Each structure stands twice: as structure tokens, then as C-alpha cells.
């Protein structure tokens, strides 16, 4: 589903973000991306979204080299990739329903599809009764569930999550993780960048660790990391 071939990326100010990364992520896999801040996790996700282009190497998604994609086709690539962020990125003046519907509206889905899909997905994330609320009236965990609903309402092939539990307490983190797992079970490839050691250790999924832009570990059923500074101390 996702393949990196010797991908390197250096930002304009000279800091290398990724160095010669090669990896394969299969369809339906659940992958944790771990590493300290500045290790290149976010760059990794931005490359997948084609918000950045690699300096060297190729990135293939569903068998297609995304650097060769012409600019006008980038939006269509993104329709196959759902995104969840630490700061939720909901629109504060739109209701929960409208926030989720927005993702379908802007890709031109007809009203009838929206009317049937949005309640369904809100049911899935357990927020059917909050459809009319504004994001500001919800807890952080609920807001993140709305964000997940928005990312998934379009049934993307890939779901990217950048620190989705970063702003949440353990209970809410659990419920978001359960949701992501459930989405993963429908066959969606999930790539999640995280700092949450407990989560990673408990889930026992594939772990890719980045350190200063280099891939230092790719473990099939991994934990957050034994050589973590926290652990050494």
C-alpha cells in the first residue's frame, strides 16, 4: 500500500528531516511511528500527503509514484487518505454533523449521500446524540472522535494520525485507539505517529522508530523502545 524507496528529505534551512528511508507498509497494516520530537515523524506523514516532495527516492501509494502526480491530481490522492491531528482541526463555527459533512461536501458528494453517510459514521464513533453540538461544547476526546469521523467518512484506503492522543487523558486515548483499531479492521491502513509509550507497548503492533531522520528500528510486534532515554535513566 505504501512503499518508500531510499527517500531523503532536507528542508531549505539545511536540516535533514529524513535520510534514506526504505520501507513497505502492506494494505490493512497498523503501524506506529515513534521517535523524539524532530526525528522526522511529521515529515514522514507530510510526504505521504504530498504536502512535501522528497529530494531523493520514490514514494509509492497504491502502486503509484506520488511525486510524479501532477499538481491538479493531488486532491484526488488526498481523498484516499484520512487525516487526524493532535489539535483536532475542527471548524469551530460548524456543528459536529456539519464538520463531518464538510469532508463530503468539498469533494462534491450529493446531499443524499451526506444525509445517509454522516449519521452512520457518527454512530460508529458514538456521537450520534451530539450531532447538533458545536465542537466547543464537546470534551477533547469527543472532538477527536469527530475528527476521526471526518477522516473516515469518505472510507479512505489510508488513515494517517499525527499524535492523535497527544492532547487527551488516558481514558480518552483508549477510546480513540479502540476507534482506530476498529477502522483498521475494516481493511484501512493506519499509520500513527505517537509519543504515547503505554499505548504502543500495549498494542503490540508494528513499530517504526525514527531518530534524526534515520530509521533505527522496524519491528513487527514492537514496543515503544528500550533505548528510550526515559528507560535508561
Amino acid at each position: 500500500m505504501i512503499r518508500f524507496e531510499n527517500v531523503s528529505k532536507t528542508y531549505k534551512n539545511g536540516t535533514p528531516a529524513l535520510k534514506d528511508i526504505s520501507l513497505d507498509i502492506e494494505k490493512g497494516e497498523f503501524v506506529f511511528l515513534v521517535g523524539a520530537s524532530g526525528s522526522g515523524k511529521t515529515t514522514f506523514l507530510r510526504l505521504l500527503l504530498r504536502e512535501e516532495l522528497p529530494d531523493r527516492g520514490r514514494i509509492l501509494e497504491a502502486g503509484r509514484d506520488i511525486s510524479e502526480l501532477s499538481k491538479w491530481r493531488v486532491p484526488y490522492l488526498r481523498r484516499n487518505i484520512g487525516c487526524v491531528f493532535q489539535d483536532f482541526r475542527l471548524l469551530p463555527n460548524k456543528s459536529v454533523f456539519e464538520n463531518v459533512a464538510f469532508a463530503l461536501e468539498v469533494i462534491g458528494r450529493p446531499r443524499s449521500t451526506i444525509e445517509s453517510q454522516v449519521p452512520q459514521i457518527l454512530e460508529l464513533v458514538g456521537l450520534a446524540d451530539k450531532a447538533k453540538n458545536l465542537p466547543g461544547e464537546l470534551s477533547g476526546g469527543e472532538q477527536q472522535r469527530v475528527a476521526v469521523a471526518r477522516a473516515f467518512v469518505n472510507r479512505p484506503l489510508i488513515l494517517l494520525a499525527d499524535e492523535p492522543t497527544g492532547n487527551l487523558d488516558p481514558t480518552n486515548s483508549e477510546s480513540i485507539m479502540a476507534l482506530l483499531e476498529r477502522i483498521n479492521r475494516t481493511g484501512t491502513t493506519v499509520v500513527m505517529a505517537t509519543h504515547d509509550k503505554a499505548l504502543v507497548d500495549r498494542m503490540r503492533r508494528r513499530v517504526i522508530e525514527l531518530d534524526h531522520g534515520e530509521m533505527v528500528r522496524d519491528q513487527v510486534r514492537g514496543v515503544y523502545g528500550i533505548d528510550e532515554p526515559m528507560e535508561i535513566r
Partner: protein
Amino acid sequence: MRVYLRYAVKETLANLWRNRMMTIAAVLTVAVSLSLVGAALLLKQSAAQASAQWQQGTRVTVWMQPNATASELNNVKTQLATLPIVKDCVFNSQAQDYQEAKRILPQSEWSVLSVSNVPSSFRCVPTVPSNAFVVMSTFKNEPGVYNVTAPEQQIRQMNSAIRILQIVFLALAGVLLLSATVLILNTIRMAIFARRREVSVMKLVGATNWFIRIPYITEGFIQGLLGSLVAVLAVTALHTWYPLHNEFQLDTTALLGTNLVVLVVGVVIGSVGSALAIRRFLDV
């Protein structure tokens, strides 16, 4: 498509309303600058029309004293006929000139005239326009001659005055049009900036650039259109009510053409302004 149409209309109107003060400023600037452009175009057209009318007629006129004797008239007539630089001459009797005065002058002026105090005249076409001045100096002091006039000179002076006026108008209009473009650019930029969150979410979920752009471009387009519509009204009012001498009065075709130019310029300015604003912001 219908879904998008409704979306685009809703967004455009909401943006216009949200930035209504800026919108008004932009629309008024477009209106003022395009009114100047329209006025300059009208001025140019009427000047061209008037001088064309004058020039196809007489180039030099020898006016006789109203009480000139028959021998004085004959003397001037033969001299004009033998002068090689004069191509052609027509004699207008006092009665004919009186009729002409009646036609050209306002009533307050010709009502004091009568056939006997109007000069008769020779309307001559010199071989080349500049020879008019030779004719002028030759006949000025002939007995029985009241005056010799060559409209060529006045036409030239008036044309250069009109040209300067026109340059001033167009320069002013150019500056104003530029500021109108910048104002529109700024309004749109503010609209996008106020909604950058929304725009970033749109891009994230895969909205095409045109989907995001169109409401903003329409907004600029509408601002340009509104401004130019006001300008069209101003230009039409100017054309209808400003008192002009017959030769300057333009027909409706000229007015329509001018208004069309004004509309097109306004719409183009609005669209270009917003397109520029978007280019900076929406680059993926």
C-alpha cells in the same frame, strides 16, 4: 454540480457580507476610476467626431463687411479665383449665412441678428491646410473684408487641449484602477485569511483548488461588476445630461461601446485582483 453551485453562491454572498466595508471601498474605487475612464473615452470620441465634421468643411473663411459694396465683393472673388493656393471657393450670401447662424447659434444670440447685419462670406478650401494662414494674411486688409478665419488653428488648439485633458483623465483613472485592484486583492486576501482554517481543512480532505478558488474569484468578479455598473450609470448620465454643442453630441452606439469597455475593464480588474490574492494563499 448543483450542490456546488449552491455552495459557491452561498460562500460568495457570505464573504461579501462579512467584508462589507472593504467591499464598499473596493466597489466605489472601481466606480470612480471607471467613470473617469468612461468620461475620457467619451471626450476622445466627441472631440474626434467634432473635428472631423469641421475639417471636412471649409478650411478658411473670408468674411465680408455686411455693408461691403458689389465691387469690393467682386474684387475679393476674382482674387480668390486666381490665387493658385486656393483650390475651391463657395460664396455664401448674407441670407445663407443668416440661416446658418440660426442653425448653429443659440437663440439668445441669433435673435439679435438680421439678414442685413450678417456678413456674407467666401468658404474656401486651400490646396493644403497650412495655406489657410497665407490666405488669412493676404485678405485681412482687403477693402470690404471684415475678418478671415481659419478653424484649422482653433481645431488644432482644441485638439491639443482635449488630448492633455484626456491624458490627465486616463492617468488618474490608471492610478485609481491600480488602487481598485489592490483593494479587491486585499479584500479577498482578508476573506481567505479569516478562513484559513477552513481552507486548510478543505485541502486536507481533498477539495480541488478550483473548488476552493471559485467562491473567492466570484467575490472579486462581483465587486468589479458592481463598481463598473455604477460607472456605467455615471457615464450614461454624463452623456445624457451634460449640455454639449451639436457637433460633440455622440449617438447611442458610441455610448454603448464606451459602457461595454467600462464593464469589461471592471470585471477583469475584479477577477484579476482576486486571482492574484488567491495565488499567494492557495499554493499547495
